[in-house]
């Protein structure tokens, strides 16, 4: 019951943004995990178990990162459907823009990979290429998302300072 009271005090729009941010972070970690999976095919046998353990650790990290926020967000969404399904906000727009960027680069990468493989035969199993493609696409998405949203952090403090000074000036007058 106390948990439900705490949930009532949380801002649903802020939780929606937090969910998006955590999702992007989770995608970045999953991308790294897939790159380690790709590395497994190229590494010698003595490193295979180490790489597997690293992937397991990263999987647990993703769950620990996203699951609490996801549960909180899901409970909040049942109460504040209209706000939590906000599709017009800044972060949700940047999220979609990052998805679009990843989609474009996916095609470039796939076509490039096809051209390379037609000329060079590496002799690796199909799973290597699937993991490589997934790692690349997820990596591009997360890089794009954090690049699109990075300047936000440069401006945020200035805006708060200015807005407070604007409000103070209004109070004085």
């Amino acid at each position: 019951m106390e948990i439900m009271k705490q949930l009532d005090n949380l801002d649903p729009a802020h939780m929606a943004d937090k969910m998006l941010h955590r999702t992007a972070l989770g995608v970045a970690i999953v991308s790294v995990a897939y790159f380690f999976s790709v590395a497994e095919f190229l590494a010698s046998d003595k490193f295979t178990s180490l790489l597997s353990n690293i992937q397991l650790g990263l999987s647990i990290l993703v769950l620990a990162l996203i699951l609490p926020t996801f549960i909180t967000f899901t409970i909040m969404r049942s109460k504040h459907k209209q706000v939590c399904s906000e599709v017009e906000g800044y972060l949700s727009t940047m999220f979609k823009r990052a998805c679009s960027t990843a989609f474009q680069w996916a095609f470039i990468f796939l076509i490039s990979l096809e051209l390379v493989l037609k000329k060079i035969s590496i002799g690796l199993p199909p799973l290597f290429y699937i993991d490589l493609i997934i790692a690349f696409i997820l990596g591009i998405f997360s890089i794009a998302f954090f690049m699109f949203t990075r300047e936000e952090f440069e401006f945020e403090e200035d805006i708060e300072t200015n807005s407070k000074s604007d409000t103070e000036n209004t109070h004085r007058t």
Partner: protein
Amino acid sequence: MSKQLTNRIRVFRAEHRMSQDDLAQAIGVSRKTISTIEVGRFIPSTVIALKIAQHFNAPVEEIFTLTKQ
């Protein structure tokens, strides 16, 4: 600032003695959305622009202005 759109949200907030957080909660968006709209990093949707105008009880054209190209 966006080259296409300027806004006077900060002026209206100051007149109403509202913080970005207050305005964000009033119209159901996050504070980041409001702050990025104010500096022109993000062009709001029609719905958000209308919600802001409705909250300040002002025409949307008074708050948002298309810049002449």
